């Protein structure tokens, strides 16, 4: 009887990660590729521009691309780029890292962010665009 009483609690605990995952839309890289056109005023995959290059983005510490002059805010941010940190940053760069030179209001739509991140996940390890990315990152 005690076991039965504990069952709803157990189910809640087990299902919590699923519920959390449900809040994060699934990204479509094809749509993300189109959204990435917005970024190309300042960024490219392969080379540094007004913003740093995106090749090798995932797992990279923010402010660490050699040869790129970052804001001190970004250089000191202690952020490592992954789906979660990118989702937060892209929703409002200046809110997450005040002082960043990426003075862009952000991508407010969670689905668009998920699409963009899904595209970045693929494009930033592309063998053609990013041949110098370490093999373990692919």
């Amino acid at each position: 009887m005690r076991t039965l009483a504990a069952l709803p609690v157990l189910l809640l605990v087990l299902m919590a990660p699923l519920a959390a995952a449900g809040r994060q839309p699934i990204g479509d890289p094809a749509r993300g590729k189109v959204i990435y056109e917005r970024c190309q005023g300042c960024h490219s995959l392969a080379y540094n521009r007004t913003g740093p290059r995106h090749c090798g983005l995932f797992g990279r510490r923010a402010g660490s691309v050699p040869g790129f002059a970052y804001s001190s805010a970004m250089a000191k941010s202690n952020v490592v780029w992954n789906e979660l940190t990118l989702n937060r940053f892209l929703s409002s760069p200046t809110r997450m890292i005040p002082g960043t030179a990426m003075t862009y209001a952000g991508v407010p739509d969670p689905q668009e962010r998920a699409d963009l991140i899904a595209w970045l996940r693929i494009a930033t390890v592309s063998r053609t665009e990013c041949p110098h990315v370490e093999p373990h990152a692919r």
Partner: protein
Amino acid sequence: MIAQVNPFNALEDLTRRRFLISSGAVLSAGTVALLAGRSALAAEYGRKMDNTQADVQILNTALSAEYEAIAAYGVGAGSGLLKKPVLDLALMFQHQHKEHADLLAKTVAKLGGKAVEAKAKYDFPIGKLKTQNDVLDFAAGLERGAVSAYLGAVPLFRNGDLSKAAASILGDEAMHWAILRQALGENPVPAAFMS
């Protein structure tokens, strides 16, 4: 006839002190952000940085991108791939980017900031530019991105006059993009809204 206007005219008599203490300017920027549906964002951004410092940062980022656009059109014009009248068009667009850059740099100085300088060297995918259309496509991509960059900057300014001025540059770059698409044989205005 198109009149030559300075989109930063409203800032001509601006002194740094006036800028810092002008609650009207803050209200104006807040109104712009509210219209764009990003009121909380603009407010929070302003709280964490000094208003002028924040605006100078935005202007300097725009200035960096303008310098890069000037260099990119220089590469296109010097490539030998552009034939008249497309070459004239590229040179005109480059000149307009120079006008943007001059004005942005002056505005940064007027606000008491230090304007960023152009890089000594820019990386461009020169190896991929084999035809006139390659150059036009490359330029169109930069202009399209520039429209989004300005669109993302407009709601962040704390001074509404700067938002208006940035929107004026945005309009010019959107025209560049449309004309480049037209030259490429693409729909020059593919959507009713930009993002």
